[in-house]
């Protein structure tokens, strides 16, 4: 069961990365305009 010493921190770390990513996206204003975001991907930037 020694493997748990690596597995548990790895699992928690990955979860924390996901949480940090969510916080970042929240702060970056990515939830401000959910409607517009799906349309903007269709706009070509020359």
């Amino acid at each position, binding site marked *: *069961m020694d493997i*748990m010493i690596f597995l*548990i921190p790895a*699992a*928690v770390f990955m*979860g*924390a990365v*996901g*949480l940090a990513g*969510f*916080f970042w996206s*929240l702060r970056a204003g990515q*939830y*401000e*305009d*959910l*409607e*517009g975001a799906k*349309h*903007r991907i*269709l*706009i070509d930037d020359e």
Partner: protein
Amino acid sequence: MAFVEPIEVARPDPDAFVRRDATGNDVLELLVKGAKCAACIKKIESNLLAMSGVADARLNLSTARLSVAWKPGAVQPHAITDALQRLGYAATAFDPGDVKRQADDEGRKLLRYLAVAGFAAMNIMMFSVPIWSGQGEMGEGTRTLLHWVSALIAIPASLYAAQPFFQSAWRALRIRRANMDVPISLAVLLTISVSVAETIQQGEHAYFDGITMLLFFLLIGRYLDHRLREQARTAARDLLALQVVTASRVDKNGNVSAVLARDIEVGDRLQLSAGAGVPVDGVIVDGASEFDCSMLTGETLPQTVKPGDRIFAGAINLTQPVLMRATARTQDSTLAELSRLIEAGEQSRATFVRLADRAAALYVPVVHTLAALTFLGWLLGPMLLRLAGFDIADVGARIALMNAVAVLIITCPCALGLAVPAVQVVATGRLFKRGVLVKSGNALERLAQVDTVVLDKTGTLTLGRPRLVGGVDASALQSAATLARTSRHPLSRALAEAAGSGPVASGAIERPGEGIEAVVDGVACRLGRRAFAAPLETDAPDGEAELWYAHGDAAPVRFAFVDSLRADAAQTIQALGARGITVELISGDRPAAVAVAARAAGIGDWSGGAAPGDKVDRITALRAQGRYPLMVGDGLNDAAALACAHASASPGTALEASQSASDIVIQGAALMPLVEAIDVARAAKARARENLQFSALYNLIAAPLAAAGFLTPLIAALAMSGSSMVVTLNALRLQIEGRSWTS
């Protein structure tokens, strides 16, 4: 409502809304109508960015708001609205204020709590599943290690994520009330403490998974609830932003500049063009004109004003430009007195107790007593049984406490906490799509109880716009219309509308309060009030609004007008009657005009000439009779009655004071959504009741199991998520049922 259609009211001057941002750019916020796809975004943004000097243009499609920034002086605000107009989008400048920002902060905070609870729930579940599935095979050391890891995640995460519940529970306890958040908070704190104690003693059962999952579920409900209310609030604010009044201030040198109404000081001289709303109370300094005061009094016919006359905020200038002097600031204008009345009315409403809180008041003491009895029972039970001759050993305080906490966890109002909000979220969401903005779940519950509807006439039951009564001579109509087409007066406009398009009399002169005169083909013609156009005629008895037309020496012709009802008014009254709701009409307009409208709409019970105080008295009398009145109105004269009624509604064209005093705001020209609102409110109440009954049933089964010591963390997790799903699914039924009356 006003005689003048919103589109014809002078649009607010965008100059007044320009703000300087932190980077030194000028910023203008606009509400853009009609943008809904990628092409719109691209067209608007690229066209604006192509204008020289524009630094940034960003359209938010969800809120239909466009923010444009430019270097000071580089662009005229008018050029931006004109450019949008050319692109085919109607844009109105508005003042975002600081309200929006605050509300957004709350939503973001809830999302953060939700994310933390979700992260904790998922990670802990990863450690709990091995414990559950390794039952009997997993060593005690490994299990305790997993418990410790869970504890390290659960303790900070749940203390952080449960903050909304702690705060709300604390607020309720401070005023000696118990709401649903009290048992939730207690369960969170007790579960965490007991689970930690259990972990320290290397015990078998820890509920870290259950408590984080519980918080995750509850926060989902909270967030959805918040988002819908936010949506309704934003939409209501947009409606108001569209009718924000700007004014043209004239300084000592005669220069005119655009200002926001709230920036007007006492003594400022303001230019009011035809079609402009009066921003603050004041006195006419120069010019004479006619004002539509229907918002203030309910009176449909315009009032004539001359220098020295007082005018009040909310009136609309109809015919000639005038100069006024402000005698009060916006916050001190007629509205101030009114907001005191509104406050007094809202206090009488504060006695209403929400369904969920009524359930909580019953539920909290029962559950807490049960938990206490469980603890005492396990602690003292064996001793009592020994006294009775049975051979039973003590189980100890630890087991007793574990079982008591198990009762608290299993009965923790996951389903109960979701039962009512889930229903209200679905109900308000459905009404929102139909153009009905519901301000709160509380409002929905009150709406469900309504048994009497009190309607205002002008602008509520009617469109607030006169229509020519038929049966007039066609040639006289065409001839009179040449004069009428030169005027903005509501009766002239109604006459011109009835006549269709045609020639316009040249050199027509409009005399405020009198009428229009012109020489057509060498014949002197007059159109206007009786004293002006036909002084020899006698007063007509029917009390209808009228215009007289004199063509040379020919006998004068009379045109009568009625205020046209909303298209579905009669249908709405009938639908309300079919639901067992009594309808009354009470208006500040002349009794004769009210009688006509009441007859046309099919309302038997009406009264006219009512002062704002009379409306309040009527509502108070109805409440004293034990009835639940719904007041529907739009004007300033309705605001106090709206605030003191059991529930209240106003059309989207209503003045700000009325909209803020109302529980629901109905957009569009139809009245029928009012009936749907009542239907949905009633259905929502039934669903909420079912959910509460289901929760009660669930607790009746689960609580005894927990008290008897049969509960394991696995069962707790299954029971909680299962019951939450049942109540959510039941709430979703509202989405589909009872749609037959439309389409």
